[in-house]
Protein backbone atom coordinates (compact mmCIF):
# COMPACT_ATOMS: atom_id res chain seq x y z
CA UNK A 1 0.00 0.00 0.00
CA UNK A 2 2.76 2.34 0.99
CA UNK A 3 4.59 1.40 -2.17
CA UNK A 4 1.53 2.14 -4.26
CA UNK A 5 1.01 5.57 -2.74
CA UNK A 6 4.68 6.33 -3.16
CA UNK A 7 4.58 5.19 -6.78
CA UNK A 8 1.63 7.40 -7.55
CA UNK A 9 3.36 10.37 -6.01
CA UNK A 10 6.48 9.73 -8.03
CA UNK A 11 4.48 9.37 -11.21
CA UNK A 12 2.83 12.69 -10.58
CA UNK A 13 6.22 14.21 -9.90
CA UNK A 14 7.30 12.92 -13.27
CA UNK A 15 4.74 14.97 -15.13
CA UNK A 16 6.87 18.11 -15.46
CA UNK A 17 9.53 15.94 -17.02
CA UNK A 18 7.08 14.42 -19.48
CA UNK A 19 5.80 17.83 -20.38
CA UNK A 20 9.30 19.13 -20.79
CA UNK A 21 10.43 16.34 -23.06
CA UNK A 22 7.36 16.40 -25.23
CA UNK A 23 7.42 20.17 -25.38
CA UNK A 24 11.01 20.49 -26.48
CA UNK A 25 10.77 17.64 -28.96
CA UNK A 26 7.57 18.97 -30.35
CA UNK A 27 9.03 22.43 -30.64
CA UNK A 28 12.10 21.29 -32.46
CA UNK A 29 10.77 18.60 -34.68
CA UNK A 30 7.29 19.56 -35.53
CA UNK A 31 7.01 23.28 -35.07
CA UNK A 32 10.40 24.22 -36.45
CA UNK A 33 10.62 21.12 -38.51
CA UNK A 34 10.15 20.75 -42.22
CA UNK A 35 6.89 21.77 -43.69
CA UNK A 36 5.41 18.55 -44.88
CA UNK A 37 2.73 20.04 -47.03
CA UNK A 38 4.50 19.58 -50.30
CA UNK A 39 5.93 16.22 -49.44
CA UNK A 40 2.54 14.69 -49.13
CA UNK A 41 1.16 16.11 -52.33
CA UNK A 42 2.00 15.20 -55.85
CA UNK A 43 3.09 17.67 -58.53
CA UNK A 44 1.24 20.90 -59.13
CA UNK A 45 -1.08 20.87 -56.19
CA UNK A 46 -4.09 23.13 -56.33
CA UNK A 47 -4.67 25.77 -53.71
CA UNK A 48 -7.56 23.72 -52.37
CA UNK A 49 -5.46 20.62 -52.02
CA UNK A 50 -2.81 22.61 -50.23
CA UNK A 51 -5.33 24.10 -47.85
CA UNK A 52 -6.83 20.66 -47.25
CA UNK A 53 -3.51 19.09 -46.42
CA UNK A 54 -2.54 21.94 -44.20
CA UNK A 55 -5.75 21.64 -42.25
CA UNK A 56 -5.23 17.91 -41.95
CA UNK A 57 -1.74 18.36 -40.67
CA UNK A 58 -2.98 21.00 -38.34
CA UNK A 59 -0.63 23.71 -39.58
CA UNK A 60 -3.31 26.33 -39.34
CA UNK A 61 -3.82 25.80 -35.63
CA UNK A 62 -2.06 27.86 -32.93
CA UNK A 63 0.94 26.29 -31.25
CA UNK A 64 -0.66 25.31 -27.99
CA UNK A 65 -3.52 23.54 -29.68
CA UNK A 66 -1.12 21.55 -31.76
CA UNK A 67 0.92 20.75 -28.67
CA UNK A 68 -2.16 19.69 -26.77
CA UNK A 69 -3.04 17.45 -29.68
CA UNK A 70 0.32 15.86 -29.42
CA UNK A 71 -0.12 15.21 -25.72
CA UNK A 72 -3.43 13.60 -26.45
CA UNK A 73 -1.75 11.37 -28.97
CA UNK A 74 0.81 10.27 -26.42
CA UNK A 75 -1.82 9.64 -23.80
CA UNK A 76 -4.03 7.60 -26.07
CA UNK A 77 -1.18 5.99 -27.96
CA UNK A 78 -2.77 7.06 -31.19
CA UNK A 79 -0.22 8.54 -33.47
CA UNK A 80 -1.83 8.06 -36.79
CA UNK A 81 -0.11 6.55 -39.73
CA UNK A 82 3.45 6.62 -40.84
CA UNK A 83 4.10 9.04 -43.64
CA UNK A 84 6.39 6.69 -45.47
CA UNK A 85 4.69 3.33 -45.19
CA UNK A 86 1.18 4.29 -44.28
CA UNK A 87 1.18 1.71 -41.57
CA UNK A 88 -0.47 2.52 -38.28
CA UNK A 89 2.26 3.82 -36.07
CA UNK A 90 1.19 1.78 -33.09
CA UNK A 91 1.28 -1.36 -35.19
CA UNK A 92 4.68 -0.42 -36.46
CA UNK A 93 6.01 0.00 -32.97
CA UNK A 94 4.36 -3.17 -31.72
CA UNK A 95 6.10 -5.04 -34.46
CA UNK A 96 9.52 -3.51 -34.07
CA UNK A 97 9.96 -3.01 -30.35
CA UNK A 98 10.14 -6.74 -29.58
CA UNK A 99 12.81 -7.12 -32.22
CA UNK A 100 14.90 -4.39 -30.67
CA UNK A 101 14.53 -5.87 -27.25
CA UNK A 102 15.54 -9.31 -28.44
CA UNK A 103 18.49 -7.78 -30.16
CA UNK A 104 19.79 -5.50 -27.50
CA UNK A 105 18.88 -7.12 -24.22
CA UNK A 106 21.34 -10.02 -24.31
CA UNK A 107 24.21 -7.66 -25.01
CA UNK A 108 23.05 -5.27 -22.34
CA UNK A 109 22.64 -7.90 -19.65
CA UNK A 110 25.84 -9.70 -20.50
CA UNK A 111 27.70 -6.42 -20.72
CA UNK A 112 26.66 -5.39 -17.25
CA UNK A 113 27.11 -8.77 -15.61
CA UNK A 114 30.53 -9.35 -17.08
CA UNK A 115 31.53 -5.80 -16.25
CA UNK A 116 30.47 -6.31 -12.66
CA UNK A 117 32.47 -9.52 -12.43
CA UNK A 118 35.52 -7.92 -13.95
CA UNK A 119 35.14 -4.94 -11.66
CA UNK A 120 34.97 -7.23 -8.62
CA UNK A 121 38.11 -8.95 -9.78
CA UNK A 122 39.84 -5.68 -10.40
CA UNK A 123 38.81 -4.35 -6.98
CA UNK A 124 39.91 -7.54 -5.27
CA UNK A 125 43.37 -7.29 -6.81
CA UNK A 126 43.50 -3.54 -6.88
CA UNK A 127 46.82 -1.96 -7.73
CA UNK A 128 48.17 -5.31 -8.81
CA UNK A 129 48.50 -6.77 -12.28
CA UNK A 130 45.00 -8.18 -12.80
CA UNK A 131 43.60 -4.79 -11.92
CA UNK A 132 45.90 -2.87 -14.20
CA UNK A 133 45.19 -5.31 -17.02
CA UNK A 134 41.45 -5.04 -16.64
CA UNK A 135 41.60 -1.29 -16.47
CA UNK A 136 43.82 -1.08 -19.53
CA UNK A 137 41.36 -3.28 -21.38
CA UNK A 138 38.48 -1.04 -20.38
CA UNK A 139 40.25 2.12 -21.49
CA UNK A 140 40.71 0.46 -24.87
CA UNK A 141 37.05 -0.56 -24.91
CA UNK A 142 36.07 3.01 -24.16
CA UNK A 143 38.30 4.48 -26.79
CA UNK A 144 37.06 2.52 -29.75
CA UNK A 145 33.90 3.88 -31.26
CA UNK A 146 30.89 1.57 -31.13
CA UNK A 147 30.57 1.98 -34.85
CA UNK A 148 34.11 0.85 -35.49
CA UNK A 149 33.58 -2.21 -33.34
CA UNK A 150 30.39 -3.05 -35.20
CA UNK A 151 32.05 -2.74 -38.57
CA UNK A 152 35.12 -4.62 -37.47
CA UNK A 153 33.15 -7.48 -35.95
CA UNK A 154 30.99 -7.75 -39.02
CA UNK A 155 34.08 -8.05 -41.16
CA UNK A 156 35.81 -10.46 -38.83
CA UNK A 157 32.93 -12.75 -38.03
CA UNK A 158 30.49 -12.46 -40.85
CA UNK A 159 32.07 -11.38 -44.07
CA UNK A 160 33.86 -13.38 -46.66
CA UNK A 161 37.14 -11.68 -45.83
CA UNK A 162 36.79 -12.93 -42.30
CA UNK A 163 35.37 -16.05 -40.73
CA UNK A 164 32.01 -15.93 -42.46
CA UNK A 165 30.31 -17.76 -39.62
CA UNK A 166 27.39 -15.39 -39.23
CA UNK A 167 25.01 -13.62 -41.55
CA UNK A 168 26.15 -10.20 -42.63
CA UNK A 169 22.86 -8.41 -42.41
CA UNK A 170 19.21 -8.89 -41.82
CA UNK A 171 16.95 -10.58 -39.38
CA UNK A 172 15.37 -13.78 -40.55
CA UNK A 173 14.42 -15.22 -37.22
CA UNK A 174 11.91 -18.02 -36.87
CA UNK A 175 13.68 -20.31 -34.49
CA UNK A 176 16.12 -20.26 -31.63
CA UNK A 177 18.95 -21.36 -33.87
CA UNK A 178 18.29 -18.56 -36.29
CA UNK A 179 17.98 -16.14 -33.42
CA UNK A 180 21.41 -17.09 -32.18
CA UNK A 181 22.80 -16.73 -35.66
CA UNK A 182 21.56 -13.22 -36.10
CA UNK A 183 22.02 -11.90 -32.63
CA UNK A 184 25.58 -13.04 -31.95
CA UNK A 185 27.67 -10.50 -33.80
CA UNK A 186 25.65 -7.47 -32.66
CA UNK A 187 25.74 -8.83 -29.11
CA UNK A 188 29.50 -9.29 -29.22
CA UNK A 189 29.94 -5.73 -30.38
CA UNK A 190 27.63 -4.36 -27.71
CA UNK A 191 29.31 -6.33 -24.95
CA UNK A 192 32.78 -5.27 -26.05
CA UNK A 193 31.96 -1.59 -25.85
CA UNK A 194 29.77 -1.83 -22.76
CA UNK A 195 32.54 -3.63 -20.90
CA UNK A 196 34.81 -0.65 -21.31
CA UNK A 197 32.54 1.88 -19.72
CA UNK A 198 30.77 -0.29 -17.20
CA UNK A 199 33.83 -1.98 -15.77
CA UNK A 200 35.42 1.32 -14.93
CA UNK A 201 32.30 2.65 -13.34
CA UNK A 202 31.60 -0.45 -11.28
CA UNK A 203 35.19 -0.72 -10.18
CA UNK A 204 35.22 2.82 -8.88
CA UNK A 205 31.98 2.26 -7.02
CA UNK A 206 33.28 -0.94 -5.45
CA UNK A 207 36.64 0.52 -4.52
CA UNK A 208 34.97 3.51 -2.93
CA UNK A 209 32.86 1.19 -0.83
CA UNK A 210 35.88 -0.90 0.10
CA UNK A 211 37.46 2.16 1.61
CA UNK A 212 34.62 2.78 3.97
CA UNK A 213 34.84 2.35 7.70
CA UNK A 214 32.41 -0.53 7.96
CA UNK A 215 34.63 -2.59 5.69
CA UNK A 216 37.52 -1.84 8.00
CA UNK A 217 35.43 -3.08 10.89
CA UNK A 218 34.56 -6.26 9.03
CA UNK A 219 38.21 -6.85 8.24
CA UNK A 220 39.10 -6.24 11.87
CA UNK A 221 36.70 -8.99 12.82
CA UNK A 222 38.28 -11.46 10.47
CA UNK A 223 35.87 -11.56 7.55
CA UNK A 224 37.69 -13.31 4.69
CA UNK A 225 38.37 -11.06 1.66
CA UNK A 226 36.18 -12.93 -0.82
CA UNK A 227 33.20 -12.95 1.49
CA UNK A 228 33.95 -9.34 2.21
CA UNK A 229 33.45 -8.40 -1.37
CA UNK A 230 30.38 -10.43 -2.07
CA UNK A 231 28.49 -10.00 1.14
CA UNK A 232 29.57 -6.82 2.82
CA UNK A 233 30.29 -4.64 -0.13
CA UNK A 234 28.08 -5.67 -3.00
CA UNK A 235 24.80 -4.91 -1.33
CA UNK A 236 26.07 -1.46 -0.43
CA UNK A 237 27.03 -0.78 -4.02
CA UNK A 238 23.61 -1.66 -5.32
CA UNK A 239 22.25 1.86 -5.30
CA UNK A 240 24.65 3.34 -7.84
CA UNK A 241 24.57 0.08 -9.78
CA UNK A 242 20.78 0.02 -9.98
CA UNK A 243 20.68 3.67 -10.97
CA UNK A 244 23.06 3.11 -13.78
CA UNK A 245 21.51 -0.07 -15.09
CA UNK A 246 17.94 1.17 -15.03
CA UNK A 247 18.73 4.53 -16.54
CA UNK A 248 20.75 3.14 -19.38
CA UNK A 249 17.98 0.80 -20.47
CA UNK A 250 15.91 3.41 -22.34
CA UNK A 251 19.07 4.82 -23.86
CA UNK A 252 20.27 1.42 -24.96
CA UNK A 253 17.00 0.37 -26.44
CA UNK A 254 16.60 3.45 -28.56
CA UNK A 255 20.02 4.88 -29.28
CA UNK A 256 22.15 1.77 -29.06
CA UNK A 257 19.74 -0.25 -31.08
CA UNK A 258 19.59 2.52 -33.64
CA UNK A 259 23.16 2.12 -34.69
CA UNK A 260 23.25 -1.65 -34.68
CA UNK A 261 19.96 -2.01 -36.50
CA UNK A 262 20.80 0.58 -39.11
CA UNK A 263 24.07 -1.07 -39.80
CA UNK A 264 22.91 -4.66 -39.84
CA UNK A 265 19.60 -3.88 -41.45
CA UNK A 266 17.57 -5.25 -38.58
CA UNK A 267 13.95 -4.11 -38.48
CA UNK A 268 13.70 -2.80 -34.96
CA UNK A 269 12.65 0.45 -33.30
CA UNK A 270 16.09 1.97 -33.82
CA UNK A 271 16.06 1.46 -37.55
CA UNK A 272 12.50 2.68 -37.80
CA UNK A 273 13.50 5.80 -35.87
CA UNK A 274 16.47 6.39 -38.08
CA UNK A 275 14.42 5.95 -41.21
CA UNK A 276 11.88 8.35 -39.78
CA UNK A 277 14.63 10.87 -39.16
CA UNK A 278 15.93 10.70 -42.69
CA UNK A 279 12.53 10.78 -44.33
CA UNK A 280 11.05 13.25 -41.89
CA UNK A 281 8.29 10.88 -40.90
CA UNK A 282 6.79 12.91 -38.11
CA UNK A 283 4.12 10.61 -36.75
CA UNK A 284 6.73 7.99 -36.05
CA UNK A 285 9.15 10.46 -34.51
CA UNK A 286 6.50 11.91 -32.28
CA UNK A 287 5.59 8.45 -31.11
CA UNK A 288 9.18 7.46 -30.36
CA UNK A 289 9.91 10.62 -28.42
CA UNK A 290 6.71 10.38 -26.45
CA UNK A 291 7.34 6.78 -25.53
CA UNK A 292 10.91 7.45 -24.53
CA UNK A 293 9.79 10.19 -22.20
CA UNK A 294 7.28 7.88 -20.58
CA UNK A 295 9.94 5.20 -20.24
CA UNK A 296 12.22 7.61 -18.46
CA UNK A 297 9.62 8.58 -15.94
CA UNK A 298 8.86 4.93 -15.32
CA UNK A 299 12.55 4.21 -14.98
CA UNK A 300 12.85 6.90 -12.32
CA UNK A 301 9.97 5.34 -10.44
CA UNK A 302 11.38 1.82 -10.64
CA UNK A 303 14.72 3.07 -9.42
CA UNK A 304 13.21 4.83 -6.43
CA UNK A 305 11.25 1.79 -5.36
CA UNK A 306 14.26 -0.46 -5.78
CA UNK A 307 16.34 1.88 -3.65
CA UNK A 308 13.97 1.31 -0.80
CA UNK A 309 14.24 -2.44 -1.16
CA UNK A 310 17.99 -2.32 -1.08
CA UNK A 311 18.93 0.39 1.39
CA UNK A 312 17.01 0.57 4.66
CA UNK A 313 18.05 4.15 5.22
CA UNK A 314 15.94 5.35 2.29
CA UNK A 315 12.42 6.19 3.39
CA UNK A 316 9.38 6.29 1.20
CA UNK A 317 7.85 9.45 2.62
Amino acid at each position, binding site marked *: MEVLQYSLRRLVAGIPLLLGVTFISFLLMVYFGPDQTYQLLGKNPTAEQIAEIRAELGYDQPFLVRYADYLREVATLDFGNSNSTGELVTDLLARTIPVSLMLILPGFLLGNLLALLLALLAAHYR*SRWPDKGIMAFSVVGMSISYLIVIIAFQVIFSSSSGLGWFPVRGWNVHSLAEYLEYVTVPTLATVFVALGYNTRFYRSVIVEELN*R*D*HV*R*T*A*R*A*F*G*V*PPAKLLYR*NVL*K*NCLIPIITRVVFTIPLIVISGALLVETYFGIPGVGKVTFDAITTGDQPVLKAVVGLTAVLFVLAQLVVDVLYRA*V*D*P*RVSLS
Partner: protein
Amino acid sequence: MSAEPILSVRDLVVEFRTEHGVVRAVDRVSFDVFPNETVGLVGESGCGKTVTGLAILGLIPSPPGRIASGSIRLAGRELVGLPESELRQLRGRDMAMVFQEPMTALNPVFTVGNQMMDILRRYKGLSRSQARAAAIELLAKVGIPAPAQRIDEYPHQLSGGMRQRVVIAMALSCDPKLIVADEPTTALDVTTQAQVLEQIVRLQQEFRMAMVLVTHDLGVVAETCQRALVMYCGRVAEQADIGPLFAHPRHPYTAGLLRSLPRVGEAEKQDLAVIPGMVPDLLDLPAGCRFAERCPRRDARCDGELPDLDGDAASPARVACFHPL
Protein backbone atom coordinates in the same frame (compact mmCIF):
# COMPACT_ATOMS: atom_id res chain seq x y z
CA MET B 1 50.67 -8.09 37.54
CA SER B 2 51.06 -11.77 36.82
CA ALA B 3 54.00 -13.47 35.17
CA GLU B 4 53.49 -13.65 31.41
CA PRO B 5 52.43 -10.68 29.27
CA ILE B 6 49.52 -11.38 26.96
CA LEU B 7 50.95 -8.93 24.44
CA SER B 8 54.60 -8.30 23.95
CA VAL B 9 55.82 -5.68 21.49
CA ARG B 10 59.54 -5.35 20.84
CA ASP B 11 61.27 -2.75 18.66
CA LEU B 12 58.31 -2.35 16.38
CA VAL B 13 59.00 -0.31 13.26
CA VAL B 14 56.19 0.63 10.89
CA GLU B 15 57.03 2.43 7.66
CA PHE B 16 54.89 4.19 5.09
CA ARG B 17 55.94 4.90 1.57
CA THR B 18 54.89 8.38 0.46
CA GLU B 19 55.57 10.38 -2.66
CA HIS B 20 58.23 12.26 -0.76
CA GLY B 21 59.99 9.29 0.70
CA VAL B 22 59.70 6.63 3.40
CA VAL B 23 58.22 7.69 6.72
CA ARG B 24 58.61 5.82 9.98
CA ALA B 25 55.32 6.26 11.75
CA VAL B 26 56.44 3.95 14.54
CA ASP B 27 60.14 3.88 15.34
CA ARG B 28 61.22 1.06 17.67
CA VAL B 29 58.41 0.92 20.17
CA SER B 30 58.46 -1.73 22.90
CA PHE B 31 55.97 -2.50 25.64
CA ASP B 32 54.11 -5.32 27.36
CA VAL B 33 50.50 -5.72 28.27
CA PHE B 34 49.53 -8.14 31.03
CA PRO B 35 46.22 -9.95 31.46
CA ASN B 36 43.50 -8.05 33.23
CA GLU B 37 45.02 -4.60 32.80
CA THR B 38 44.39 -1.57 30.62
CA VAL B 39 47.38 0.16 29.13
CA GLY B 40 47.00 3.57 27.60
CA LEU B 41 48.83 4.75 24.48
CA VAL B 42 48.75 8.51 24.77
CA GLY B 43 49.97 11.25 22.50
CA GLU B 44 48.96 13.92 20.06
CA SER B 45 47.79 13.30 16.48
CA GLY B 46 50.46 11.79 14.34
CA CYS B 47 52.55 10.39 17.16
CA GLY B 48 52.08 6.85 15.96
CA LYS B 49 49.69 5.54 18.58
CA THR B 50 46.94 4.54 16.17
CA VAL B 51 49.43 2.95 13.80
CA THR B 52 50.77 0.90 16.70
CA GLY B 53 47.26 -0.29 17.46
CA LEU B 54 46.64 -1.20 13.83
CA ALA B 55 49.96 -3.00 13.65
CA ILE B 56 49.00 -5.29 16.50
CA LEU B 57 45.93 -6.44 14.57
CA GLY B 58 47.87 -6.54 11.33
CA LEU B 59 45.57 -3.96 9.76
CA ILE B 60 48.22 -1.60 8.39
CA PRO B 61 47.04 -0.72 4.86
CA SER B 62 49.53 -2.61 2.82
CA PRO B 63 50.40 -0.76 -0.31
CA PRO B 64 51.71 2.31 1.39
CA GLY B 65 52.54 0.83 4.79
CA ARG B 66 54.26 -2.18 6.24
CA ILE B 67 55.73 -3.54 9.44
CA ALA B 68 59.39 -3.12 8.65
CA SER B 69 60.80 -4.91 11.64
CA GLY B 70 60.20 -5.84 15.24
CA SER B 71 58.14 -8.39 17.05
CA ILE B 72 54.56 -8.59 18.26
CA ARG B 73 53.71 -11.59 20.36
CA LEU B 74 50.16 -12.41 21.36
CA ALA B 75 50.08 -15.05 24.11
CA GLY B 76 53.54 -16.08 23.02
CA ARG B 77 52.65 -16.39 19.33
CA GLU B 78 54.61 -14.22 16.90
CA LEU B 79 52.29 -12.15 14.71
CA VAL B 80 54.81 -10.31 12.54
CA GLY B 81 55.37 -12.28 9.39
CA LEU B 82 52.32 -14.45 9.96
CA PRO B 83 50.51 -15.08 6.69
CA GLU B 84 47.31 -13.12 6.27
CA SER B 85 45.10 -16.19 6.28
CA GLU B 86 46.31 -17.14 9.77
CA LEU B 87 46.21 -13.58 11.09
CA ARG B 88 42.65 -13.36 9.91
CA GLN B 89 41.68 -16.32 12.08
CA LEU B 90 42.90 -14.42 15.11
CA ARG B 91 41.08 -11.21 14.39
CA GLY B 92 37.81 -10.95 16.18
CA ARG B 93 38.50 -14.11 18.10
CA ASP B 94 41.80 -13.80 19.99
CA MET B 95 42.19 -10.09 19.53
CA ALA B 96 39.68 -7.44 18.61
CA MET B 97 39.67 -3.77 17.73
CA VAL B 98 37.21 -1.00 18.38
CA PHE B 99 37.55 2.02 16.14
CA GLN B 100 36.98 5.69 16.63
CA GLU B 101 34.00 6.47 14.43
CA PRO B 102 30.88 4.71 15.65
CA MET B 103 28.65 6.42 13.11
CA THR B 104 30.30 4.68 10.16
CA ALA B 105 31.71 1.57 11.79
CA LEU B 106 28.73 -0.65 11.06
CA ASN B 107 27.39 -1.72 7.71
CA PRO B 108 24.24 0.34 7.08
CA VAL B 109 22.41 -2.22 4.99
CA PHE B 110 22.49 -5.09 7.43
CA THR B 111 20.83 -5.27 10.83
CA VAL B 112 22.84 -5.03 13.99
CA GLY B 113 21.99 -8.61 14.84
CA ASN B 114 23.04 -9.83 11.44
CA GLN B 115 26.49 -8.31 11.86
CA MET B 116 26.94 -9.64 15.37
CA MET B 117 25.71 -13.09 14.50
CA ASP B 118 28.09 -13.32 11.60
CA ILE B 119 31.04 -13.30 13.99
CA LEU B 120 29.45 -15.67 16.47
CA ARG B 121 28.52 -18.18 13.82
CA ARG B 122 31.85 -17.99 12.08
CA TYR B 123 34.03 -18.45 15.16
CA LYS B 124 31.87 -20.36 17.55
CA GLY B 125 29.91 -22.42 15.08
CA LEU B 126 26.61 -21.51 16.70
CA SER B 127 23.32 -22.10 14.98
CA ARG B 128 21.21 -19.13 14.02
CA SER B 129 19.01 -19.24 17.08
CA GLN B 130 21.94 -19.82 19.41
CA ALA B 131 23.83 -16.94 17.89
CA ARG B 132 20.80 -14.71 18.18
CA ALA B 133 20.39 -15.51 21.87
CA ALA B 134 24.07 -14.92 22.51
CA ALA B 135 23.94 -11.62 20.66
CA ILE B 136 20.97 -10.42 22.68
CA GLU B 137 22.80 -11.31 25.84
CA LEU B 138 25.88 -9.39 24.72
CA LEU B 139 23.82 -6.34 23.88
CA ALA B 140 22.35 -6.41 27.34
CA LYS B 141 25.80 -6.72 28.82
CA VAL B 142 27.03 -3.56 27.13
CA GLY B 143 24.06 -1.71 28.51
CA ILE B 144 21.72 -1.45 25.53
CA PRO B 145 18.09 -1.32 26.63
CA ALA B 146 15.50 -3.62 25.00
CA PRO B 147 18.15 -5.71 23.29
CA ALA B 148 15.65 -8.16 21.80
CA GLN B 149 14.18 -5.35 19.72
CA ARG B 150 17.42 -3.55 18.98
CA ILE B 151 18.94 -6.62 17.49
CA ASP B 152 16.69 -6.39 14.46
CA GLU B 153 17.28 -2.73 13.91
CA TYR B 154 19.60 -1.09 11.44
CA PRO B 155 22.58 0.98 12.55
CA HIS B 156 21.03 4.26 11.46
CA GLN B 157 18.27 3.69 13.96
CA LEU B 158 20.73 3.73 16.85
CA SER B 159 22.52 6.70 18.40
CA GLY B 160 26.29 7.09 18.23
CA GLY B 161 26.77 5.89 21.77
CA MET B 162 24.67 2.80 21.16
CA ARG B 163 26.48 2.01 17.94
CA GLN B 164 29.76 2.14 19.79
CA ARG B 165 28.40 -0.21 22.38
CA VAL B 166 27.36 -2.61 19.63
CA VAL B 167 30.90 -2.58 18.29
CA ILE B 168 32.20 -3.21 21.78
CA ALA B 169 29.76 -6.08 22.12
CA MET B 170 31.05 -7.49 18.86
CA ALA B 171 34.58 -7.17 20.13
CA LEU B 172 33.70 -9.08 23.29
CA SER B 173 31.65 -11.76 21.60
CA CYS B 174 34.42 -14.32 21.32
CA ASP B 175 36.18 -13.60 24.60
CA PRO B 176 39.34 -12.18 23.07
CA LYS B 177 42.59 -12.17 24.95
CA LEU B 178 43.24 -8.57 23.94
CA ILE B 179 41.17 -5.62 22.86
CA VAL B 180 42.65 -2.58 21.19
CA ALA B 181 40.40 0.44 21.47
CA ASP B 182 41.36 3.36 19.23
CA GLU B 183 39.86 6.57 20.60
CA PRO B 184 36.62 4.75 21.35
CA THR B 185 34.85 7.75 22.79
CA THR B 186 36.41 10.71 21.01
CA ALA B 187 33.58 11.02 18.50
CA LEU B 188 30.88 10.97 21.15
CA ASP B 189 29.44 13.84 23.13
CA VAL B 190 30.75 14.35 26.64
CA THR B 191 27.90 12.71 28.51
CA THR B 192 27.83 9.65 26.31
CA GLN B 193 31.58 9.54 26.49
CA ALA B 194 31.46 9.22 30.25
CA GLN B 195 28.84 6.47 30.08
CA VAL B 196 30.66 4.42 27.48
CA LEU B 197 33.98 4.76 29.29
CA GLU B 198 32.38 3.58 32.47
CA GLN B 199 30.99 0.63 30.57
CA ILE B 200 34.41 -0.18 29.17
CA VAL B 201 35.99 -0.14 32.61
CA ARG B 202 33.30 -2.41 33.99
CA LEU B 203 33.52 -4.83 31.11
CA GLN B 204 37.27 -5.02 31.30
CA GLN B 205 37.02 -5.99 34.94
CA GLU B 206 34.18 -8.42 34.38
CA PHE B 207 35.80 -10.22 31.44
CA ARG B 208 39.28 -9.82 32.87
CA MET B 209 40.62 -8.79 29.48
CA ALA B 210 43.81 -7.08 28.53
CA MET B 211 43.16 -3.80 26.80
CA VAL B 212 45.22 -1.27 24.92
CA LEU B 213 43.47 2.07 24.90
CA VAL B 214 44.73 4.53 22.32
CA THR B 215 43.82 8.13 23.03
CA HIS B 216 44.99 11.72 22.99
CA ASP B 217 42.93 12.54 26.03
CA LEU B 218 44.79 12.34 29.33
CA GLY B 219 41.51 12.49 31.20
CA VAL B 220 40.37 9.25 29.57
CA VAL B 221 43.69 7.65 30.45
CA ALA B 222 43.34 8.67 34.07
CA GLU B 223 39.89 7.13 34.30
CA THR B 224 40.50 3.85 32.58
CA CYS B 225 44.16 2.79 32.60
CA GLN B 226 46.46 1.21 35.09
CA ARG B 227 49.55 2.03 33.07
CA ALA B 228 50.30 4.34 30.20
CA LEU B 229 52.81 4.97 27.46
CA VAL B 230 53.34 8.51 26.28
CA MET B 231 54.30 8.58 22.62
CA TYR B 232 55.94 11.35 20.65
CA CYS B 233 56.95 11.31 17.01
CA GLY B 234 56.76 7.56 16.64
CA ARG B 235 58.69 6.74 19.79
CA VAL B 236 57.83 6.12 23.40
CA ALA B 237 58.83 9.08 25.57
CA GLU B 238 57.81 7.67 28.90
CA GLN B 239 55.92 4.76 30.40
CA ALA B 240 54.77 4.34 33.97
CA ASP B 241 51.91 3.34 36.24
CA ILE B 242 49.11 5.87 36.19
CA GLY B 243 49.56 7.32 39.64
CA PRO B 244 53.26 8.09 39.36
CA LEU B 245 52.85 9.22 35.75
CA PHE B 246 50.40 11.93 36.68
CA ALA B 247 51.94 12.84 40.00
CA HIS B 248 55.60 12.85 38.99
CA PRO B 249 56.07 12.86 35.24
CA ARG B 250 59.69 12.38 34.31
CA HIS B 251 59.75 13.31 30.62
CA PRO B 252 59.49 17.05 29.88
CA TYR B 253 56.87 16.26 27.21
CA THR B 254 54.63 14.47 29.66
CA ALA B 255 55.05 17.30 32.08
CA GLY B 256 54.16 19.78 29.37
CA LEU B 257 51.04 17.80 28.48
CA LEU B 258 49.87 17.67 32.05
CA ARG B 259 50.55 21.35 32.54
CA SER B 260 48.48 22.27 29.54
CA LEU B 261 45.37 20.65 30.97
CA PRO B 262 43.02 23.28 32.27
CA ARG B 263 42.13 22.58 35.88
CA VAL B 264 38.80 23.18 37.52
CA GLY B 265 38.96 25.55 40.44
CA GLU B 266 42.13 27.37 39.59
CA ALA B 267 42.18 30.55 41.57
CA GLU B 268 43.46 33.09 39.09
CA LYS B 269 42.60 33.59 35.48
CA GLN B 270 45.62 32.43 33.57
CA ASP B 271 46.56 31.77 29.98
CA LEU B 272 46.52 28.09 29.14
CA ALA B 273 50.02 26.74 29.23
CA VAL B 274 51.21 25.47 25.88
CA ILE B 275 54.23 23.58 24.73
CA PRO B 276 55.98 26.01 22.40
CA GLY B 277 56.86 25.00 18.84
CA MET B 278 55.43 22.24 16.66
CA VAL B 279 55.82 18.53 16.15
CA PRO B 280 58.67 17.97 13.65
CA ASP B 281 57.89 16.75 10.17
CA LEU B 282 58.34 12.99 9.95
CA LEU B 283 60.12 13.43 6.65
CA ASP B 284 62.60 15.84 8.13
CA LEU B 285 63.51 14.50 11.55
CA PRO B 286 66.35 15.89 13.62
CA ALA B 287 69.31 13.64 14.35
CA GLY B 288 68.88 13.78 18.09
CA CYS B 289 65.95 13.88 20.45
CA ARG B 290 62.78 14.77 18.56
CA PHE B 291 61.40 16.83 21.38
CA ALA B 292 64.59 18.84 21.83
CA GLU B 293 63.40 21.81 19.81
CA ARG B 294 60.55 22.40 22.22
CA CYS B 295 62.21 21.30 25.45
CA PRO B 296 63.27 23.67 28.20
CA ARG B 297 65.98 21.25 29.34
CA ARG B 298 67.67 20.89 25.99
CA ASP B 299 71.41 20.78 25.57
CA ALA B 300 74.02 19.76 23.01
CA ARG B 301 73.76 16.08 23.83
CA CYS B 302 70.01 16.13 23.14
CA ASP B 303 70.62 17.56 19.69
CA GLY B 304 73.22 15.01 18.77
CA GLU B 305 71.96 11.73 20.22
CA LEU B 306 68.57 10.01 20.12
CA PRO B 307 67.65 8.90 23.66
CA ASP B 308 66.32 5.38 24.22
CA LEU B 309 64.10 4.17 27.04
CA ASP B 310 66.14 3.49 30.15
CA GLY B 311 65.78 0.30 32.12
CA ASP B 312 64.56 -2.84 30.39
CA ALA B 313 61.33 -4.49 29.37
CA ALA B 314 60.59 -5.54 32.92
CA SER B 315 61.01 -2.12 34.53
CA PRO B 316 57.72 -0.59 35.66
CA ALA B 317 58.76 2.97 34.83
CA ARG B 318 60.91 3.96 31.88
CA VAL B 319 61.81 7.25 30.31
CA ALA B 320 63.66 8.19 27.12
CA CYS B 321 65.45 11.36 28.10
CA PHE B 322 68.94 12.51 28.97
CA HIS B 323 67.65 14.99 31.52
CA PRO B 324 64.52 13.53 33.05
CA LEU B 325 62.68 15.53 35.67
